[in-house]
């Protein structure tokens, strides 16, 4: 047995261990580095600003974005679109709807579309990934073959294919189309990290302890496999916004445009690009900035979580 004196000494060491040991948890040190990374700060700033905008936009927008308040000033024949005027700082769109209100409220839909698409994609990917990664064997083989086939079609093609399946085009079809593209990506990613977890010693230890399979998967494997997935999801939010815009551009966006969404505003402004570029610039600018925000945050998180970059 250890003598009491030595025990105490070791106790003391353990007490002081927290601040002297070299290893600091991955998450904590990642966060420490993130807080100092200008990339992250800029990105997070952008995202916060836009999320805030989306939340307060109903208060900021003075008009109902669906109403054609300036319809009289629209003339197809003379190519007239309402100019900025009192009460309408940005004028109207090609149907005479208030542009500023649409740009403001567009933030809600755009973020929602991106978020839902990513959440659905993530959900699907998680399910596939967990199935494949947790069970292995033929489940893994089967799931991965499905994923392979999905991945063998270039992403936009897949999105367009899925989008075209729906009779009525709506924001919902856009979400599903964009989400479908993400499923195999998340699935593969998660499977990889899950498999790595499955072979890891701490999972082996849990198994040796007789912990139940379900609890091993959800308490030990999943939480540790999620890091890269979360990073990917952040990056995917940017991709989702851009993909949704591309679908709108190809004519697969929501048919009903009364609720504004930037991608769809940009898509429908393409015919006016030469003569009324501001119709495209506002939504495009917003898309680029938000996408940039998510990309910055995702990239900086990836860097921060990269064990190679520690030190």
């Amino acid at each position: 047995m250890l003598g009491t004196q030595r025990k105490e000494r070791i106790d003391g060491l353990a007490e002081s261990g927290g601040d002297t040991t070299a290893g600091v948890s991955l998450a904590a040190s990642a966060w420490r580095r993130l807080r100092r990374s200008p990339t992250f700060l800029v990105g997070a700033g952008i995202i916060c600003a836009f999320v805030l905008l989306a939340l307060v936009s109903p208060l900021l927008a003075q008009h109902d974005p669906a109403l054609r308040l300036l319809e009289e000033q629209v003339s197809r024949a003379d190519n007239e679109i309402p100019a900025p005027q009192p009460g309408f700082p940005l004028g109207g769109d090609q149907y005479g709807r208030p542009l500023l209100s649409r740009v403001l409220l567009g933030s809600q839909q755009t973020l929602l579309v991106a978020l839902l698409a990513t959440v659905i994609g993530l959900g699907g990917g998680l399910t596939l990934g967990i199935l494949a990664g947790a069970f292995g064997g033929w489940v893994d083989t089967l799931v991965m073959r499905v994923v392979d086939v999905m991945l063998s079609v270039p992403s936009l093609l897949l999105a367009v294919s899925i989008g075209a399946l729906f009779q009525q085009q709506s924001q919902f079809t856009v979400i599903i189309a964009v989400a479908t593209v993400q499923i195999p990506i998340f699935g593969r990613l998660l499977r990889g990290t899950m498999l790595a977890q499955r072979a890891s010693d701490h999972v082996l230890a849990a198994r040796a302890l007789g912990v139940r399979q379900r609890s091993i998967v959800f308490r030990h494997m999943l939480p540790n496999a999620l890091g890269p997935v979360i990073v990917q999801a952040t990056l995917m939010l940017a991709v989702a916004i851009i993909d949704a815009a591309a679908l709108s551009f190809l004519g697969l966006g929501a048919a009903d445009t009364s609720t504004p969404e930037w991608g769809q505003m940009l898509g429908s402004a393409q015919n006016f690009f030469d003569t009324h570029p501001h119709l495209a610039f506002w939504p495009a600018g917003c898309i680029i900035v938000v996408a940039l925000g998510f990309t910055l945050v995702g990239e900086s998180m990836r860097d921060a979580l990269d064990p190679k970059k520690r030190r």
Partner: protein
Amino acid sequence: VQSQRGEDNGQTMVFGAPGAPALFDPFYASDGETFRVTRQMMEGLVGFESGGVEVEPELATDWNSSDDGTKWTFQLREGVKFHDGTDFNAEAVCANFERWYNQTGTGQSSALSYYWIETFGGFAGDDEPSLFSSCEAPDPTTAVINLTRATSKFPAALGLDSFSMQSPTAMKKYEADKVEAKGSGFEYSEYARKHPTGTGPFEFDSYDQNNQSVELRRNDDYWGDKAKLDRLIFKVISDESVRKQELLSGGIDGYDFPNPADLDSLRQQDFNVQVREPFNVLYLGMSQKKNPALRKLKVRKALAYAVNRENLVNANLPDGAKVANLFYPSSVDGYADDVAKYSYDPEKAKRLLNEAGHSDLTIEFWWPTQVTRPYMPDPRGIFNSLAGDMRKAGINVKPVSKPWNGGYISDVNKGDAEVFLLGWTGDYNSPDNFIGTFFGSTENQFYTKPAPWGEKLANRLDAADKEPDPTKRERMYTEINRDLKSKYLPAVPLSHSPPAIVTAPHVKGLVTSPLTAEEFASVSIEK
């Protein structure tokens, strides 16, 4: 092609076409992009006046019909040769007619012989009697066409591009009738793809599918005024803003169907924007199949009052668009001015709905996506505008949108769409070509079968078509038009939109046609 390289190519015009031609045999075609090309190379017995819709002589110099309207005799122009050097004569005319009439198998598909079926009905050996009976060639310059009955379509229908005269020798040599259904489409003959042979001012040079351009060259042996251009190139540019940019950057010399929004700026930059006489109609269709409320005349009238067509034309339609009072433009026979007009009156609409017992009427309003048509340049805008109007009149609108080819057309044609947007571009000057196709059947998009007058209307249209006496016929059509607006109102005509055509300032001599049937023989480039 190679041989001409490096030399001065003389006058070349590049025209931006919105779509690719399917083939170069107009008989099997029914789309404007094919006709745009074949029209330059081929001619029919009759043609349409330059800039108008009236019939005038082309390969036939004169014609007359028997009193019962079943025997048509054509005097043919002399000294006309096909591009392959063979003679155009009465035998060639009959060879063409017989080719059309004797189509078999795939050739009888309405996806191919659409205009034949529309105009002449059936084929040889069909149960259904064809309008065509026989063709005789008593002498080389006289062709006689025998019909089974009189029709209002003659002789104007013969001016349709599908019925252009093509060289029997070439057609035989390159197996023109060899079309096959393959997968979900048709594979055309070598003739139709590479060797179209007509009598027109231009002849076929090449179709560069890699670059999506069709090249024609001048026919130096043309019987009439020779074309001024040496070469005429149609370049396929499907996107309308790209067509505009190409024109601006000098890549093309002109293009069709500009975006109405661009007209103004194009004009300001000295481009020659020519707005054609409208020869189409956009209507608010109503189907009496699903929604019983729409079987009530008062409800339909209420809808007619509810929509603000003036505003629609102003805000959503291009320069030169007009509010439509009838289902066809005034240049067509039988036009009546004194019909019920239904000017915008939401209060009245509400009242009528009340009276009909449908004060809280709910309708499905269908509109198409992924399409623009000459009569409907911006379906979403038009829908938005009309739906707004209807809502103001207290009607609950349930929007239904489908891709044009992704279910819209097929569902509307089944009569499944309660209220919908659709239109028609006329082929030639005949009321039958408009209202005959609309209401000649009771089980189509309008589904007039449940209406007490549905059958009757169809019969009246049929009778008018069969009337050989032009004056009498015109009166019958006028009557029908009046009743259509007041008693029946199966749909609400909305507007006639003129499709425009744009050319660069150096392009001279282009005469537009209401039928969008421009001929480029008269065009020259003056830089």
